């Protein structure tokens, strides 16, 4: 395996892809959103129960590439039991790390740092995080196709 390939597809990412944390739709979710990447057709659903500004339950489902799925799993792990303000801060830190803004974060999420050199794939990695942000905005009214979709911006495609 080449050095570069192992920088992206690190064991920690491949493990999260294989055995994702928090996989499934949270029943009776208070917050939910669907995310969609029109470039590749990846779909992500993020659902949560939030009580008193704290995640009580958080889950996701994905029909996606390994990077997107592993990224969602890492997000589940990082934000379980988190407060909303802490979650929003972490989402912003994660995005800044991916955008190559020199932010260092700890834990499994740090495994995605190499993605700053692969902007085409950054969209895959960020999809779950953007979907979570959308869910927090939407509350429980969201879900379902097109109207509730969060489309990542696209500069690609034939």
């Amino acid at each position: 395996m080449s050095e570069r390939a192992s920088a992206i597809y690190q064991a920690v990412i491949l493990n999260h892809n294989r055995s994702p944390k928090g996989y499934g739709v949270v029943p009776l979710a208070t917050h939910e959103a669907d995310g969609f990447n029109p470039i590749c057709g990846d779909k992500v659903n993020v659902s949560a129960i939030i009580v008193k500004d704290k995640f009580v339950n958080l889950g996701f489902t994905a029909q996606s590439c390994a990077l997107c799925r592993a990224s969602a799993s890492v997000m589940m792990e990082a934000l379980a039991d988190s407060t909303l303000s802490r979650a929003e801060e972490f989402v912003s830190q994660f995005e800044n790390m991916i955008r190559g803004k020199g932010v260092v974060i700890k834990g499994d999420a740090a495994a995605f740092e190499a993605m700053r050199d692969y902007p085409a794939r950054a969209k895959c990695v960020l999809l779950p995080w953007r979907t979570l942000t959308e869910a927090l905005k939407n509350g429980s009214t969201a879900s379902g196709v097109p109207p509730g979709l969060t489309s990542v911006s696209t500069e690609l495609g034939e």
Partner: protein
Amino acid sequence: MSRFSRNGKLNIEELRKVFPVLSRQIRGKKLTYLDSGATTLKPLRVIEAVDHYYRNGTANIHRGVHLLSEEATSRYESTRTAVKDFLNAGDEREIVLTSGTTAGINLVAKSFVKSRVKTGDEILITAMEHHANIVPWQMLRDETGCKLVVAPVLEDGSLDVSAFKSLITGRTKFISCVWISNAFGVINPVKEMVHAAKSAGVPIMFDAAQAVAHEAVDVQSLDCDFLVFSGHKLFGPTGVGVLYGKMKHLEVMPPQMGGGDMIKSVSFEKTIYADVPAKFEAGTPDIAAVIGLGEGIRFVTEDLGFDVIRAHEQELLVAAELALQDVPDLKILGTAHPKVPIFSMILGKIHAHDVGTILDLQGVAVRTGHHCAQPLLARFGVPATVRASFSIYNDQEDIKALVQGLRKTLEMFA
């Protein structure tokens, strides 16, 4: 014998030397370019022609009496002649220079078909169209109330020809079909399709975007009404394309864009349009790209010839099919023959984007995603595939690099 061949056999080493980008290292590896379906690489003679125009002869066309303008006009118009010969059109005026395949299809939809359809009428396409040959017709459908009818594709990725024929009825007012599928590389039986259309008296257009770099086109013998393609899939620059149309059609079609260069005279009371094809070419075009397209065509006809191209590509097709058989868990969509070496692949349960990234890290450039043919992939129940599309400059080493890259991907996800 042509510049890069002897006794019909391609001298691939010499040919590769005229594609400068092939000597580039990609992420520290030799470039294996397998994305010619998206756009072909450009040979030196195209690059130099574009460079020459900007460096030695920048001028606008069809106006000005100075030498630079005359030279630019002459080189611009020489592309029209080259296209006419390339397509074996009967008349140079049947060649409209556009910005690409998409522009050509949209022009025909708006200028030719729109006034010929009403509620209840039908436009026939196939299930293997590129979005460029779907969306303009949907827009027309929504505007006019006509119906878009789609001829199905069989399990092997080929057109269901008998269904196609049976869908041509008294309600069918226009047929627009792809010649070679951009997603699968499968070649449609265009002669048979034209025959079916003619028997019913329905005009037919071909999207030849993928076809022109692989197959000789003879619009007179084929007897199609319209044909469109893009320069950048024919070794030429982006931003230029061709609409071929029969003179009798082009003459009655109103222009869709007004401006300079498409008029005979303008007053505030009345404007008289220029003749075909100028009436469709408003504004200053991408002159450099048009000149480059002419060189792209000369590269194909003078330096290679379709016999050489076909022989080399069929060799690659057979060798790649054989080599890919040995990759475990690999499924190829669109196995029907005749086809050109374009392979739409699914590797086990690994997502196309992951395969594409791991191949890229080995220097192998492929397309991943839906290839602007979402309805076709949906027909096969997948959102995305990995597409390796070969061209004349690819060799056996490229097949090896692809197979090796796919095997590495499998190892990583084991």
